[in-house]
């Protein structure tokens, strides 16, 4: 620790940021992709059609299917295909349980025209990517929450110390000076942090609030006592949605759902129904709650509550039920961005990418700063320095490559393979692992100076990354029926956007690789000008 306030803050920022930097990069990138989780789901299940029937037709077939699958259920839940989060008609049911235990539950995706259940290839989809950013996939969830929580805490510390050590926040607001080595990386790191500072703060802080009851279990204990029962009681009270109705145990026919839906739509406008929740269908005391789409970060919908047997409107419940809970929910809602329309969703995505790039720039800055001194050492760079250089490659290039591999696996694994969705994930992590060891293996196979190994690893992996994303549209065209040409002619914007994003990622990776290659060649042969650089063979370079 150094003396002086700014120096000590700088020390905390540098080392605190470094130790959790790679995990934070992982969390930020997978979380950012989570803003388009449903869209990625749809890309990864190309069999599902995007056409949907009218609301009346959807409700009719959903009710018929529920009647067939789950008569006498405790609860039916219909999500009509009216919003971004739910592009496909979905039904859910819960049977009555015995002795206080939860009954059997089930859910199905339905064709909204015919009511036939639709099946698609087994895949984790975008959902799995999104869940990875707090559950880290292989680990038990509580352990993962703690790891993520500690890393987020470090992130919060890094943000605050970062603001303290940044000398000229306003004067250097727009400053980026390229081609100046360390200076440029610092500029880039600062720029990416400052321009999206409100986002970084919000996302980190609210991320911590998500698992606050895991991190601070004593908060519950103080009013509810210890033990699992006390916890359960607390969550029951916190999350109980509506006052519970008891069944009358008298049979009655369910009144027309589409009439109730029409009533809700006349109030809210068309395509505004998020869900229809039916408790005790077929009973005289059945209740039907119709919830509206989300329009604000408050994670609850206003609801219309009907008497399901008569179709009479009983209650018009506002979304806001408790102010303290709303404070928490708004923070979580801001984090999730479920209320965001397409424009705001892109802004969220973009801010997330800025955060991801900021972390990457910070990690690269760490090594760039220390490289000259480390390279001048007589016995070569320290083990620690080499480790950081390799881990940087392993995560900053490894994760995007691993995600590309995940997409490739989705298209290439046999549709009938039983452990399909598990293996998609295994392939993601295997790729990540292989890339993490790439510089190490490379230096064993081809003896070179340390810095050349690192630089060439960057260049080669960037080329691989470029090809991995560049060929995805082609792979999609070959293996599915939704080819590039078909997407364009049928105005299938979802698939067109994916093709464009893959292409852009590929071009960026390719251009970066080419630029790094030129820089490296200029360093090795400073006399050669850029016009005949291509004539230098790789062999020459590696000697």
């Amino acid at each position, binding site marked *: 620790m150094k003396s002086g306030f700014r120096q000590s803050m700088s020390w905390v920022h540098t080392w605190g940021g470094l130790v959790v930097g790679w995990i934070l990069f992982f969390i930020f990138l997978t979380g950012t992709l989570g803003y388009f989780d449903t869209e990625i789901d749809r890309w990864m299940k190309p069999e599902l059609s995007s056409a949907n029937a009218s609301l009346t037709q959807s409700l009719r077939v959903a009710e018929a299917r529920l009647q067939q699958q789950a008569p006498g259920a405790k609860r039916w839940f219909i999500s009509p295909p009216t919003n971004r989060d739910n592009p496909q008609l979905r039904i859910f049911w819960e049977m009555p349980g015995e002795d206080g235990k939860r009954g059997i539950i089930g859910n199905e995706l339905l064709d909204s025209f015919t009511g036939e259940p639709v099946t698609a290839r087994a895949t984790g989809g975008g959902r799995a990517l999104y869940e990875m950013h707090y559950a880290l996939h292989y680990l038990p969830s509580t352990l993962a929450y703690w790891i993520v929580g500690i890393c987020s805490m470090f992130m919060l510390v890094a943000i605050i110390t970062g603001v303290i050590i940044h000398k000229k926040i306003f*004067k250097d*607001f*727009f*400053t*980026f*000076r*390229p081609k100046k080595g360390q200076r440029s990386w610092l500029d880039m790191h600062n*720029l*990416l942090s400052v*321009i*999206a500072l*409100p*986002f970084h703060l919000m996302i980190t802080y609210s991320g911590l609030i998500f698992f606050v009851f895991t991190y601070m279990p004593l908060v519950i204990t103080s009013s509810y006592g210890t033990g699992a029962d006390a916890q359960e009681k607390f969550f029951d009270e916190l999350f109980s949605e509506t006052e519970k109705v008891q069944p009358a145990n008298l049979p009655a026919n369910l009144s027309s759902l589409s009439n109730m839906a029409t009533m809700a739509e006349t109030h809210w406008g068309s395509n505004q129904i998020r869900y229809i929740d039916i408790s005790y269908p077929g009973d005289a005391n059945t209740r039907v709650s119709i919830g509206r789409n989300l*329009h*604000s*970060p408050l994670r609850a919908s206003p609801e219309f509550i009907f008497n399901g047997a008569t179709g009479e409107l009983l209650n018009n419940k506002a979304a806001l039920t408790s102010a303290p809970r709303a404070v928490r929910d*708004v923070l979580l809602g*801001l984090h999730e961005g479920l*209320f965001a329309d397409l*424009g*705001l969703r892109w*802004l*969220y995505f*973009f*801010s997330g990418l*800025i955060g991801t790039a900021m972390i990457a720039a910070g990690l690269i800055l760490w090594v760039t700063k220390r490289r000259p001194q480390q390279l001048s050492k007589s016995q070569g760079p320290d083990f620690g320095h080499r480790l950081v250089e390799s881990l940087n490659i392993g995560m900053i290039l490894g994760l995007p490559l691993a995600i590309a591999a995940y997409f490739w696996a989705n298209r290439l694994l046999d549709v009938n393979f039983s452990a399909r969705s598990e293996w998609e994930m295994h392939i993601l992590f295997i790729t990540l692992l292989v890339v993490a060891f790439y510089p190490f293996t490379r230096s064993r196979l081809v003896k070179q100076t340390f810095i050349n190994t690192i630089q060439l690893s960057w260049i080669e992996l960037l080329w691989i990354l470029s090809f991995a994303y560049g060929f995805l549209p082609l792979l999609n065209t070959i293996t599915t029926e939704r080819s590039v040409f078909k997407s364009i002619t049928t105005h299938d914007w979802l698939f067109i956007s994916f093709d464009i994003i893959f292409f852009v990622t590929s071009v960026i990776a390719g251009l970066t690789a080419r630029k790094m290659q030129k820089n490296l060649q200029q360093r090795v042969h400073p006399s050669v000008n850029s016009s005949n650089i291509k004539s230098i063979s790789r062999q020459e370079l590696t000697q």
Partner: protein
Amino acid sequence: MLLALGLTYLSCLAFAISLKRHFHQLFSSHRLFRKHTFIFKSLGWILLALSINASVQLYGFATGLVVLCGLFSAAAFLIALLLPYSPRTIIGIGSSSLVLIFIWFI
């Protein structure tokens, strides 16, 4: 949203012009006087207020501010990246957003 983006962009641009380094990147032949700094800074704040107004009108107060933060990040990022490479593009985008806003009000 395009209107709000245009206003946010112009606000960022005004702030950038008010800073000496970026003024020289944008208009290399001219000199920046202290008086100008003040004018551009005030202009930046006024435009920022207008863009807050635009996004709040579109999305309501809470969500509008969220949208504004996102727009501001995007606009500032664009300007900061273009400054060293192509200052003329910045002015180009600025003028087209001016035209866009003008048409909007008519």
